[in-house]
């Protein structure tokens, strides 16, 4: 089998960065996220391959928080598209975990299937290679397995498995991965290593039947209760690897301008504000309910698996201690009068 020894990781990243933008888990200014390897400040920032995961997910890579779409120029009453900014430059995400890889599959399904292909997402995604890292030691807030994700088999092009000092097992899974592996094969070694034993999950939850049960719970009093301490701050949706709502807006000056899209959040009031002044989700309760129904019910109905991948980020980030695992448990326990 192919092995990447630990002292060669940086060389591999340097090599890959020659022909693509490589996003790696990095610590940055008291936070952490997937940032371009080229922008790393080695004095201040560390590669975070050996901690569990990073705080800001890699969703930004395929679905940037702000993405310029096209520029317009006005002549008389007509507007013309001047330039379209589809960005298909090669990108690699290195070291993402199974939960985040599943989240990318969610985005793929949303943006590329069911009859409409989002050309901006497609341009980025077509030239993207995913190198995932298997998780042998789930963290205190991880519950991916309960959401149908196998932490040992991330859905990616290449999987690396941390075998301690001896290095990483390097497993190529797809033709895209083959190509990448060939390009750095001189930096890999050939030897046999044994992957570590997987440790047990500290957080257990039973999602079985939840999507089904939620169908009858839209008007359930549980939402009032569960949402009562939510501040609608939206952090949970911004740190979530699979939340993908966006807004399209315009900037213009004189006869020129451009359209861009930017992340939005169903936790915001403005999200459902209507032109006439109405709002179908007037309070925290409706917004909160939407987030959890989308995660746990609607997405499952449409795509056959939940939109929550069990990464646990929202649990860590919520300033008021709202925990999706508790919510799943409460839904399980709730009595529904028929």
């Amino acid at each position, binding site marked *: 089998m192919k092995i990447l020894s630990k002292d060669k990781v940086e060389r591999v990243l340097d090599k890959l960065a020659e022909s693509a933008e490589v996003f790696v888990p990095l610590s940055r200014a008291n936070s952490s996220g997937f940032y371009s390897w080229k922008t790393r400040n080695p004095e201040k920032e560390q590669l975070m391959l050996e901690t569990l995961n990073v705080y800001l997910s890699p969703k930004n890579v395929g679905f940037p*928080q702000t993405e310029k779409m096209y520029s317009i120029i006005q002549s008389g009453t007509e507007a013309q598209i001047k330039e379209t900014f589809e960005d298909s430059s090669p990108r690699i995400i290195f070291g993402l975990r199974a939960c985040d890889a599943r989240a990318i599959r969610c985005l793929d399904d949303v943006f590329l299937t069911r009859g409409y292909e989002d050309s901006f997402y497609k341009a980025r995604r077509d030239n993207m290679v995913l190198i995932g890292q298997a998780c042998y030691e789930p963290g205190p807030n991880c519950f991916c397995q309960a959401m149908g994700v196998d932490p040992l088999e991330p859905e990616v092009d290449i999987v690396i498995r941390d075998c301690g000092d001896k290095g990483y097992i390097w497993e190529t899974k797809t033709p895209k991965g083959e190509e990448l592996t060939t390009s750095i094969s001189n930096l890999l070694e050939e030897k046999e290593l044994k992957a570590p034993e997987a440790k047990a999950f500290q957080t257990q939850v039973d999602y079985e039947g939840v999507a089904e049960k939620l169908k009858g719970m839209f008007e359930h009093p549980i939402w009032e209760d569960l949402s009562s301490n939510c501040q609608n701050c939206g952090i949970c949706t911004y740190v979530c690897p699979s939340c993908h709502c966006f807004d399209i807006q315009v900037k213009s000056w004189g006869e020129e301008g451009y359209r861009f899209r930017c992340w939005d959040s169903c936790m*915001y009031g403005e999200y459902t504000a209507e032109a006439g002044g109405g709002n179908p989700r007037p309070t925290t309760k409706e917004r909160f309910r939407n987030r959890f129904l989308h995660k746990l019910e609607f997405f499952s109905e449409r795509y056959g698996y939940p939109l929550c991948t069990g990464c646990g980020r929202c649990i860590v980030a919520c300033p008021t201690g709202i925990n999706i695992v508790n919510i799943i448990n409460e839904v399980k326990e709730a009595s529904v009068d028929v």
Partner: protein
Amino acid sequence: MKEISKKVKEIASRLLSEGQVDVFLAWEKGNQDYLTRPLVVRSAEEAERIVFDEYSIHNLSNYLLKFRDGNEKVGLVVKGCDSRGVIRLLEDNQFSRDRLYIVGVCCPGMKDPLKAIKRNSGLLQNIPDDDKADKCSNCAYPNPLIYDELLGSEQEPNVKGERQAKIQEIENMSPDERYEFFRENFERCIRCYACRQACVACNCRVCIFDEMRPQWVGRENNETDNMMYHLVRAYHMAGRCVECGECERVCPVDIPLMLINSKLAKDANEFFGPYEAGIKYEEGSKPALSVYRLDDPDEGFM
């Protein structure tokens, strides 16, 4: 604190069963020792869940905004900083005093559950071992400034001066250095607006950042729009921020918002003072910079 916790529970259950309040705002315990979280209680029975402990850091005055349009009477627990938030809402005419029952707690300093959960998450590095909240080492008013009932024994203010020293340092920078300092910090902002949502002084019904016609501040996550967001936020906080520290605490990317807020408080005091926001409530009192007068000495305001 156990004693205080017990008393809060008793008070809540008394107020709710006697019908003196319809809702009581306090805290309950979450899944971990360090996870204390806000709780909205509506019956004496539910009041059993109430706790008050060293992680009861959230400023519950912000939650009053959820109830501002109703007639319900609301009881809540406030620490020193939170009590200034209540004064903010009263001065801003967002609540009437007679709808409130305020249980004040003299605060010995709090810990921040977010620090603890982040340290244990495996998602972040170098989070210090000490959960003590940053805002509590800059606390001039640990004792509630408005209350109907007071618990605990009076505490000494705890102002370590580190924040003021940092402000001084920034004041002494050249304009270019200062710009760079803020650019670097605001660049990280993900524009989630959590700082606004957690803020009791951000109580406008339609926030300027949500206005679409016209759209005052662009929604792009870039240097210009981020800068604009933070400038506007700062302007709107001058003379109004009660220094409860919630914005900085909840910020997911650790932007030092309290440096800005405290500088604004300092300037408001120097230019329009002596003035400190939300330290004394009198019927009809108004925060600095919120009064419109035809004979305003500064033409700019006319």
